[in-house]
Each structure stands twice: as structure tokens, then as C-alpha cells.
């Protein structure tokens, strides 16, 4: 497929997204170590920002996102308000989901970040259903689902790919292959060493890409999205990357080889992209970007801190559209 090359604004935009994600998550990391500041566990995509930025920037507004426990990047790249995001992570009333979700199921249906499940492997099934609706209504939308390499072991992922392929539904399956599933290394759960190889058995295109190359990810995503949009059915894109902060901020990563970690640190997607931009004479456009990202995060923290906790009894709200009244 022949596509227009990325223009300057697009390239700069990709970089800005990655910087915002990194800045936001660095603050999460910091806050996670302040006792009592953040309830529950914190899961960042530190090191994987290129996947979020590269794929999400390739979507149109009517395209739908389904994501998982490692969702900050997807949400921020989609333009979700960092304040509402952080407030949700903190369980506040002003959070995206009024504190019902917390850190693990962050969703912003208004921006078509339609559903988020922390049941590993569930996302692809939900996405298949959303894509069915797009197909049924003959809309031009595609549903893009992010899932981990570990998730690919779940039966649900197979069922989703199979049905999407049989019915030619517009699903872009994006596997963020970050070398780990919890404390389990990729080869311990995946006998062939890659997930993308499965695409052939569903008669859909599939490809392994360098997940730390934001422009490459973006290009690949654009190609696959065209495929999906043109009625040819789903596609599978695997992005090889690395989970730099362990499974979550509580993870000490004792089981991770230090050299491996260091080698991936040397491939940091932001540093790499900054070099590329500078090489291409675009260095000046990065000026002030970091500061702006930090300021956005400062505002988010201020907003979230100022947001009260929701009243306890509002725990009863939001379950049904037509509530059930029960005594007892």
C-alpha cells in the first residue's frame, strides 16, 4: 500500500504524545511511592509509549478503542483529560468513572475509549462485538484492541480472532508484546516466540513490528487500518517492546535479567524518536515540549487532589439504567 509520508506536524504530535504519557506516568511512579497517596496498584506503560502513540494517532475519531490494565498511554494519546484520568486513579468523584473503576478499568466512552477490562484476554472479545456493530451499521469505523502477549494464551483471544475473521469484522488486534506476562517470560507462554504468526491460521494479515519505533508503529497501524476499513476483515499487529517498570510499580523485578533491562533501556522509544527528529532537522519543534507535558501533569495533580471522594452510599449507583429496588 502506498501512503502519504508523515508530515512534520504528525511526527511532532507523536513525540508530544509520548512525552505526555511519560510525564504522566513518571508522576504516577513518584506518587506510588508516597504512602497512602494512590489506592491499589499502579501499572505503567513506561517503555511502551511508542505503541500507544503510534497506533492511537493512526485512528480516526469514530474508531473505537478497547483497552486493558495497561491503559494510560492509550487514553492519553486519545486526548483523555489527564486530570480526570488521575482523579479516577485516585478514586475521586471527579474521576473519569466517578471512582467506580479506579486504576484498572479506566474508560472514556465519550472519546470512544469504549471499554476497558482487566480480565486478561477479554478485550479482544469485547472489541469483536464493537466491530460487529460498526460492520452491521456499515459505518467506516474500526475497533482497535490492545492486549498483552500473555493475554494471547487465553481462549477468549482465539474465539475473538476466529469470529472476527469468519465474519470479516473491522478489528485491529494490537498485541503489545512486552516480553513479559506478570513474572513469566514470553517463551514460557508462547511456544513459537511470536503471536503474529497466528494470523495466518485465521486467514488475516499479521506482522511483528518494532514497538519502540513510533513512526514505524504508526505506519504499520495505518496500513492495517486501511485493510480493516476496506471490508477485508481483521488484522493482527504485534509490537515487540519492553515493560521497563515491571508489571506494576510494586514489582521489584528480581526475576529480570539486568543486562536485558539495560539493553532495552538503550532503545527507549522517546530518546530514539528525539534523535530521529533532531537528525531530520526538527529539533527546534521539541523545544518546551517537556515543560508543557509537565505542566499538564501539574494541572492534573491539582485537579485530582482537589476532587473529593465520592459519597460512600453512591456506591449503589450506576449498576443498572433501570435500578432494582431491594429491601433488606
Amino acid at each position, binding site marked *: 500500500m502506498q501512503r502519504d509520508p508523515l508530515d512534520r506536524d504528525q511526527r511532532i504530535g507523536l513525540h508530544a504524545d509520548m512525552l505526555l504519557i511519560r510525564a504522566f506516568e513518571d508522576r504516577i511512579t513518584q506518587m506510588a511511592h508516597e504512602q497512602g497517596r494512590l489506592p491499589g496498584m499502579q501499572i505503567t506503560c513506561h517503555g511502551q509509549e511508542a505503541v500507544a502513540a503510534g497506533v492511537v494517532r493512526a485512528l480516526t475519531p469514530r474508531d*473505537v478503542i*478497547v483497552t486493558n490494565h495497561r491503559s494510560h498511554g492509550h487514553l492519553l494519546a486519545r486526548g483523555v483529560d489527564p486530570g480526570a484520568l488521575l482523579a479516577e486513579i485516585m478514586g475521586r468523584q471527579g*474521576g*473519569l*468513572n*466517578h*471512582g*467506580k*473503576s479506579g486504576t484498572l*478499568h479506566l*474508560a*472514556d*466512552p*465519550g472519546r470512544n475509549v*469504549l*471499554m*476497558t*477490562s482487566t*480480565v486478561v484476554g*477479554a478485550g479482544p*472479545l*469485547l*472489541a*469483536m*462485538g*464493537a*466491530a*460487529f*456493530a*460498526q460492520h*452491521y*451499521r456499515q459505518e467506516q469505523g474500526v*475497533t482497535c484492541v490492545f492486549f498483552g502477549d500473555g493475554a494471547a494464551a487465553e*481462549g*477468549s483471544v482465539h*474465539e*475473538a480472532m*476466529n*469470529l472476527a475473521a*469468519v*465474519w470479516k469484522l473491522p478489528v485491529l488486534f494490537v498485541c503489545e508484546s512486552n516480553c513479559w506476562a506478570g513474572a513469566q517470560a514470553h517463551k514460557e507462554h508462547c511456544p513459537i516466540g511470536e503471536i503474529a504468526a497466528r494470523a495466518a491460521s485465521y486467514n488475516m494479515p499479521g506482522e511483528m513490528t518494532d514497538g519502540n519505533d513510533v513512526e514505524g508503529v504508526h505506519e504499520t497501524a495505518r496500513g492495517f487500518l486501511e485493510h480493516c476499513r476496506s471490508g477485508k476483515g481483521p488484522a493482527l499487529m504485534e509490537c515487540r517492546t519492553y515493560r521497563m517498570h515491571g508489571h506494576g510499580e510494586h514489582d521489584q523485578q528480581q526475576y529480570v535479567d539486568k543486562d536485558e533491562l539495560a539493553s532495552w533501556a538503550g532503545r527507549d522509544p522517546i530518546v530514539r524518536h528525539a534523535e530521529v527528529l533532531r537528525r531530520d532537522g526538527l529539533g527546534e519543534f521539541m523545544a518546551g515540549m517537556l515543560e508543557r507535558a509537565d505542566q499538564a501533569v501539574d494541572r492534573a495533580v491539582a485537579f485530582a487532589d482537589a476532587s473529593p471522594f465520592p459519597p460512600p452510599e453512591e456506591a449503589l*449507583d*450506576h*449498576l*443498572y*439504567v*433501570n435500578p*432494582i*429496588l*431491594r*429491601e*433488606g
Partner: protein
Amino acid sequence: MPVKSTGQAVAEALALAMEMDEDIFLAGEGIGTSIHVNPHLPTFGLLERFGPRRVRDTPVSEAAIVGLAVGASCMGLKPVVEVMFFPFITLAADMLVNHAAKLRYLSGGLSSFPLTVRVKSGVFSAGCQHSHSLEAWLAHAPGLKIAYPSNPADAKGLLLSAIFDPDPVVVVEEMPLYWTIHGEVPEGDYRVPLGQARIARQGGDATLATYGGAVHVALQAAEALQAEGISLEVIDLRSLVPLDTASVIASVRKTGRFLTLHDATRFCGYGAELAATVAETCFDELKAPVRRIAAPDIPVPFSPPQEAFYKPSADQVTQVVRGMMHAG
């Protein structure tokens, strides 16, 4: 009013709903092209009438069937999907319980899931991997609503309410009723609201609450008891969630005796909830202990005499009621 079989009544509801609303589609295993040619089956003739866009035969993938419904309903469609037999609900349990039931809550009320799952229950000489009444499971999963009709009119009216309800509803259809129970069915857009029980037979001495095919067993028992001068009130619950607690309690206040009946096994069955609710609420009115009649705590055996042994009978009901009359 025309007399129809229960299966025909379901088919009529499905056809009517699809005519009324283009957002409604059906999906499931063998719902379009079937190995059965039986006009009493609930999707008989619908593929021919509505075409393969709206009546979709799926692969054997129960998680995908319900996942399809969850995803598509979040996009605003109103899916009506079928899980062939009740034991296979286990394969879709994650999609039902962790997704259909919870995603609205997790979103803080931003999303809704107007989906309907039809599932066939009943005991029909196929053994315990095809027959296993798990309505108590579903009733213990906040976020779902459950209907369980006993006759053609309710099968139509409850299903139409379910389909147009903005929340996820599971409709349990007891397969043998499709062809064994006929009755008058109101024409047109007839709805039976979820959460309203029906007094299937008036009585003054004891209240029996039940649902589905067991209603007919209860009525048979009531008839036999009448001959002995005992008057049994039979409540057909119709909807298990929401439960029409008020009707049950009003009846017990009148009769002073309460028993439950279902084909599901006893321990932690739906009857436990009913019995507990009445015991909590009607302490002063009860003249005898509450009683539960249910299947023994075993899987459904295949051998015909053992299958008959499994299923609670009208004789069991009369015996228990007689005992309650002597008790107080």
C-alpha cells in the same frame, strides 16, 4: 387470542422485536440453519424472514457469543443472543458476570448494555452436561436481570421486555415447554414487566413460589390438594431478578405457610433466597416452617427412572404441603 406453543410465542416475540427495531439482531449456534425442523423451536423460520445479516449462526464459541453481545450493545445495538444449553453458560460466565453485568458500573454509568441472552434449560434425556439449572448463579451476579417464563404469553411478554430493557437480561427458556405448553398469546407488542409475579392459582392455606416448568407441577399438586380440602396459592415468579418480593410476602401474610419449588438442585439454590426472605420478613405470620422442594444435590442422571427421580414431582409437593398443614 390465538393459542400458540411456548416456542411459537418466543419466535413471535423475536420477529416482532426485529420488525420494530433495526438495532436488534440475533446470534447463536444453529439459530438460523438448524439440525431440527420443528415449528415449535424459538428461532424457526427467522433466518428465512430476516436474512443472514440479522440472524447470525455463530461458531461453537459461547464466550464469543456473549462477548459479541457485550461489545455490540455498548455501541447501541440491542443484541439477542442464544447460549444453547444452560451448562454452557459456564463458558460465557466471564463475559456475563465480569463484563455484561459490571462494565456499566465500572464506567460510572457512562455506558450501557441493552443485551439479552436467551438460554435453554430443562431436563431432556441428555444428561448432566446438557441439563443444569444455574439460575441461582445468575441471580447472585449483581448487574444482571433474570426472567424465567412458564407459558407462552409470559414467554413472549417477558422476552419483549428483556429485549427493550436497557440493562443486560438473561431469559431462561425451559426447552420442553416449547412444544408441551400451549396457551393464548396476546397479539402485538405485548410486554410483561420484569419484576412482577403472577398468582397462577389463588389459595388460602399455603403459598408456593416457583417458576418455569415447575409452575405446572405446582398447579397439578394444587389440584390434588384441593380434593383434600387444602387450598394452595401458586405464585409464578416470572422474573427472578428483580424478584417481586412484595407479592410473595403479601401472599404469605395471607396464608401463613410458605414453600418453594424448582428443578435446580437444593443447596444454595434460588429457593434458599426465597425461603430466607420469607423467614426474615414474615416471622410473626408463619404457622409452619418454610420448606424447600428442589432436585437432590446431584448432577442430572441419564437413566430415565433416575432422571424422573431427580425432578421434583407433584406428589412431593402434596406430601410436603400436607405435612405443613399438620405442623401448624
